[in-house]
């Protein structure tokens, strides 16, 4: 399980910390009334505050504060009822103020925990150091003109939550699990849409290596702005190899900021520590310290939805699902919602099996999400009801499911139209059983000779004769009675 890099002199362990930037879901920006909508024409969602016109002042958007608190509570973290916004000073064309309003030594959320759900069904806790609120920057476009860069300020000032983990992860898989879990939590909470492809969630990846078994923390390299789980894992793999190679050569890893090239699957130095920005943080004098009451926090806490960890525990405890199946179902809020609609009032284990074993395959084959599922939760539930009341067999149900995928029809209609209703009339089944026994002379001999497995052949014959509609339980019983008798 453990992820080790073979070096020349020893095995190396990789130490990973992540800084995940999550764009906050809010109508307006962190300090201005401009819209946060994604995809507008360039520079159409920009207020005079965002453009840093002279004399303009920031005013905190309370909705963003609520969202940050909600997320903090979702991370089981300490909520700081007093926090301070600070200016992080640097020049860039898409940073109109010449500073980013962020939080430095007094963030809104302190230490917390995030539980990783690993593919083998085990869990592991990763420490959260902090979460703070800050403004996003605009977008520089360098490919619009041969000589000039264009600037789009639509994203400027949109609220970001930066979640900083402790350096607690030891493999690319764990880092992937961290980001997926983070995404799951913010989606449950409705605080961030988690869409990494649109940049609304992205990570800075801090990697260092150390001899396996050691507890030192060596110099780390930070790779900025990585925007998919796969890329994050590739960064870690590349960085681990690169750093081990440096140590093997007797060199030292330098503290620096690196960029990921997803085409070449490598990281490259962006700036070294010597050239690192001195951000000259200081409290923003345009803003008073952000202060709210414990009651405000309690009110938000009371409105929290059930989160993936609690939901998983419920599925395991109440529904008797395996931790793995429960983990798979709760990972995405939409999946869990779908599952619960199917499971409501039905056999939950059976519902889980159908969702995981039948529906998921179709979804991934078609590359669609559960909200786009061709089979609605109501229809799938109805199908389970048809099985439960012996209208159809499990085997026929699979055919009905295929037909549901094709037509989108309700299962009852398909069963009706295709005449798939299970034959439970013992006379009809008996006739088919008798015919099968009569036709299978050698097989009868084998059965009598002690080959129990040959029973399956008879079942197959009966099913063939009834187009699979005979109730399998009745068929089995009758066959045994007649062959044994």
């Amino acid at each position, binding site marked *: 399980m453990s992820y080790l890099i073979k070096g020349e002199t020893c095995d190396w362990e990789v130490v990973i910390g992540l800084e995940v930037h999550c764009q906050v879901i809010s109508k307006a920006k962190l300090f201005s009334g401009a819209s946060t909508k994604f995809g507008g024409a360039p520079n159409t969602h920009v207020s*005079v505050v965002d*453009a*840093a*016109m*002279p*004399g*303009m*002042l*920031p*005013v*905190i958007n309370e909705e963003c504060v609520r969202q940050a608190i909600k997320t903090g509570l979702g991370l089981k973290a300490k909520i700081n009822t007093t926090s301070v916004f600070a*200016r992080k*000073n640097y*020049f*860039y*064309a898409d940073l*109109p*103020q*010449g*500073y980013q309003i962020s939080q430095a030594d007094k963030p809104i959320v302190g230490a917390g925990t995030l539980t990783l759900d690993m593919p083998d069904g085990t869990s592991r806790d990763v420490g959260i150091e902090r979460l703070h609120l800050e403004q996003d920057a605009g977008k520089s476009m360098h490919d619009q003109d041969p000589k000039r*860069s264009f*600037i789009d300020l639509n994203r400027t000032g949109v609220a970001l939550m930066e979640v900083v983990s402790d350096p607690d992860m030891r493999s690319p898989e764990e880092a992937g699990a961290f980001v997926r879990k983070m995404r799951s939590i913010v989606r449950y909470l409705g605080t961030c849409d988690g869409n990494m492809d649109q940049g609304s969630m992205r990570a800075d990846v801090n990697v260092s290596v150390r001899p396996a078994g050691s507890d030192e923390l060596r110099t780390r390299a930070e790779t900025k702005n990585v925007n998919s789980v796969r890329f994050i894992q590739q960064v870690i793999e590349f960085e681990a190899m690169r750093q081990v190679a440096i140590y093997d050569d007797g060199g030292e890893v330098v503290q620096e900021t690196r960029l990921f090239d997803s085409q070449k699957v490598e990281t490259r130095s962006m700036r070294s520590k010597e050239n690192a920005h*001195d951000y*000259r*943080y*200081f409290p*923003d*004098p*345009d*803003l*008073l310290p952000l202060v709210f009451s414990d009651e405000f926090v309690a009110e938000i806490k009371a409105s929290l939805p059930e989160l993936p960890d609690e939901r998983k525990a419920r599925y395991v405890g109440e529904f008797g699902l395996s931790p793995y199946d429960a983990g798979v179902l709760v990972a995405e809020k939409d999946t869990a919602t779908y599952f619960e609609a199917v499971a409501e009032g039905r056999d939950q284990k059976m519902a889980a099996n159908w969702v995981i074993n039948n529906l998921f395959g179709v979804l991934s084959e078609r590359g669609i999400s559960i909200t786009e599922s061709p089979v609605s939760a109501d229809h799938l539930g109805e199908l389970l009801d048809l099985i439960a009341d012996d209208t159809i067999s499990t085997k026929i149900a699979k055919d009905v499911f295929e037909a549901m995928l094709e037509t989108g029809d309700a299962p009852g209609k398909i069963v009706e139209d295709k005449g798939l209703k299970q034959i439970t009339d013992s006379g009809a089944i008996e006739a088919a059983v008798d015919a099968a026994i009569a036709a299978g002379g050698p097989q009868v001999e084998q059965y009598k000779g002690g080959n129990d497995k040959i029973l399956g052949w008879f079942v197959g014959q009966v099913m063939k004769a009834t187009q699979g509609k005979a109730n399998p339980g009745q068929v089995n019983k009758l066959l045994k009675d007649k062959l044994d008798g």
Partner: protein
Amino acid sequence: MMSDLTKLTIAQARDKLAAGDCTSVQLTQAFLDAMEAGRGLNAYITETPEIALQRAKDSDDRRANGECLGPMDGIPIGVKDLFCTEDVLTTAASHILDGFVPAYESTVSANLKNAGAVMLGKTNLDEFAMGSANITSYYGEVKNPWKAADGKDLVPGGSSGGSAAAVAGRMAMAATGTDTGGSIRQPASFCGITGMKPTYGRCSRWGTIAFASSLDQAGPMTQTVRDAAIMLGAMAGHDAKDSTSAPIDVPDFEAALTGDIKGLKIGIPKEYKMDGMDPAIQALWDQGIEWLKAAGAEIKDISLPHTKYALAAYYIVAPAEASANLARYDGVRYGLRVPGDSLDDMYQNTRGEGFGEEVQRRILIGAYVLSSGYYDAYYIKAQKVRTLIADDFKKAYEDVDVILTPTAPSAAFALGEKQEDPVAMYLNDVFTVPASLAGLPGISVPAGLSADGLPLGLQILGRAFDEETVLKVADVLESSAGFTLHAGVGA
């Protein structure tokens, strides 16, 4: 007739307008004529005669319909060119804001406009309000309407030097100023007018070009204390667009001018008696004490022990904030852009040419005191000093109601003096800076003359949001002093 109109105070003009003895258009035209005649003082960067006459006419029409908006309706004023004014060039006296015409009106100037005030133009200032002599303006230095005995030109003080010169030179009935470390009170003292810095948070900073956000505060510059009370009432008020604006109602400041200060306790801080202080200033201070005593106030010696650290703390905090506030002037979106081979080159060229020497000096000081390794030693320590200074005042106000001090350590000096030594220039703010750091209200009232016959101001400081007591005492001081502006700057 016209020149008489320019001598009116706001209170007098209000009464004349109400009585139908004159119109706002007449008042406004008189000031526009005076502005033209007084252009040599360079008090205005931009004159706005069309806007002025239109607003004056609107005011007269309102009045004719019985819809007067209050005491400021029809009053012609100058607006410091640090306040953004919709569709009117706004420069902060800096090259870097070349051609900048805001699409919005600052809250303070909008409040005045909504109260019916008539904007005559945008007054000159030190670049980005950084200076104490109004010699750092890209649009040229401002001259004080008062002349030295030998006829030499004098500075008007700064940074609101254009506003002070306009009011003293009767080119505006009143003007807005901003005060970060003394930028209203010191030029008021130098020009023989009244200047008030209200409590931090009393006037909105929204739309006022920022110098040092935790210190900047707008205030009135007027001929009299009564005018300051009237004008402040129109400027002040809570503004949800400024997070540091205080959610406190605006009282009727003029109503506080009862003339009765019997039993009020006046503090005299021993730390403001500086070695080598101009004897005329010490004498005036003593005289002020006598006047207030004679009016029935009780005089108490007090101590503000951390005063001596105020200037040093101020010249760390203010530049630190300025270094970030001025980062937005980067040539990308508005104002001056001087091209370069790369983004960094463009920044360097634009900011190198766009900012004057004093602004560059303060940006450098600010960046330095915030930089890694120096932050604790400078910025954090200065903030601690700031807290101690605020505590000094808090303690003092347990025993006294207001504090009386000189406004500035000297009278106006000649243009060209002190220019080579920034530190000597910074000393101008020594009496005004402590109250700025503590966010407290202060007013400078012209109270007498120097040996050379130049105006000198006395400063009254008060408790936070107790402008009423400050104005009440200032009013008594003004009556006792009997200072007349017009004796100094011609009939």
